[in-house]
């Protein structure tokens, strides 16, 4: 049996999933870092970013190759596939609720304003600013941790850890470069649509690998992955359509959302 992502089609879906997931998480991290830099100063904020990226890189370097070399592939597929399926369903569930208006959409402008208000309370420290460092570190680390999970799971199971890490690194660089150029939070990025796409791909890979782990035989081998993406895309679309009327009042005005958006 071939491994998903061992063919150009599987690899393309894997790289796309990692790139989109990394980009969307880094947009969220960038919003926090910009708020910290503008209100508390850039030196400590950038030190916090560098420290978080270093810890995340160590996690990938420590866990990724260990999983590839020491865990049998069938066990890796089963455990990682199950983990990826749970993780992907969480993303997809939130995306469906957001698209149908039942969950507040991610709003970078509101998050930026909230961060600035919270950080403006006390004056910046002279020299190193522990608050700026901690907030920037936490923002980048927590957003990046989801990327690390995705890179390790997708990369190790497909035996393309280097490619997955590269896709994530490119996304980080692209988002950082765009952030420097426009010098503001990237509220124009279609985050909710990107999260829907990432959720679809994670659920598809999760289904594929967890099923392979229990010896399911996929017709078409790797080609089943894009078919799964299409299948789950249709299910998500039907759910959004079905839930659409729940989110609208009689006059067509949206009712209050059921869940706030924190992520």
């Amino acid at each position, binding site marked *: 049996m071939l491994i998903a992502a061992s063919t150009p089609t599987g690899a393309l879906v894997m790289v796309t999933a990692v790139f989109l997931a990394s980009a969307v998480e880094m947009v969220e991290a960038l919003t926090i870092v910009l708020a910290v830099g503008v209100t508390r100063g850039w030196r400590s904020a950038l030190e916090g970013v560098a420290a978080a990226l270093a810890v995340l890189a160590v996690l990938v370097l420590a866990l990724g190759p260990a999983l590839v070399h020491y865990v049998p592939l069938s066990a890796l597929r089963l455990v990682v596939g199950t983990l990826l399926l749970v993780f992907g369903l969480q993303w997809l569930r939130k995306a469906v609720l957001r698209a149908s208006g039942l969950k507040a959409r991610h709003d970078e402008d509101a998050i930026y304003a909230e961060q600035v208000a919270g950080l403006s309370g006390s004056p910046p420290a002279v020299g190193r600013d522990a608050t700026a460092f901690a907030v920037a570190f936490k923002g980048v680390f927590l957003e990046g941790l989801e990327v690390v999970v995705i890179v390790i799971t997708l990369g190790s199971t497909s035996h393309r850890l280097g490619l997955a890490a590269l896709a994530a690194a490119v996304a980080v660089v692209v988002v950082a470069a765009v952030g420097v150029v426009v010098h503001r939070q990237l509220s124009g990025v279609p985050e909710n649509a990107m999260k829907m796409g990432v959720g679809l791909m994670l659920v598809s890979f999760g*289904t594929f690998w967890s099923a392979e782990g229990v010896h399911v035989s996929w017709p078409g081998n790797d080609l089943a992955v894009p078919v799964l993406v299409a299948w789950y895309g249709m299910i998500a679309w039907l759910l959004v359509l079905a839930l659409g009327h729940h989110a609208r009042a009689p006059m067509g005005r949206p009712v209050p959302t059921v869940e706030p958006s924190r992520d």
Partner: protein
Amino acid sequence: MIDGQPVNAGSTARRWMVTFGRFWWEFLVGDTPELLIGVVAVVGVLAVICLRPGLRTAAAFVGPVLVAGVLTLSVRRAVRRSR
């Protein structure tokens, strides 16, 4: 010594483990335990089906349908909780 009390290394380690475990539980499961339970159930059903080699291709069609069911149930749970 913390506040004049000797530090118990065992309880510190236990507390650290609990905090560590709670962080990962919140990170991976959070307020949607039905997704974890549903996915484990789906994988279990597929494993049982695949005990018969002749049904391994059929299981490829059953799995995505069951996963879609888990997603639908979780979304419905979110809607119910909103009422």
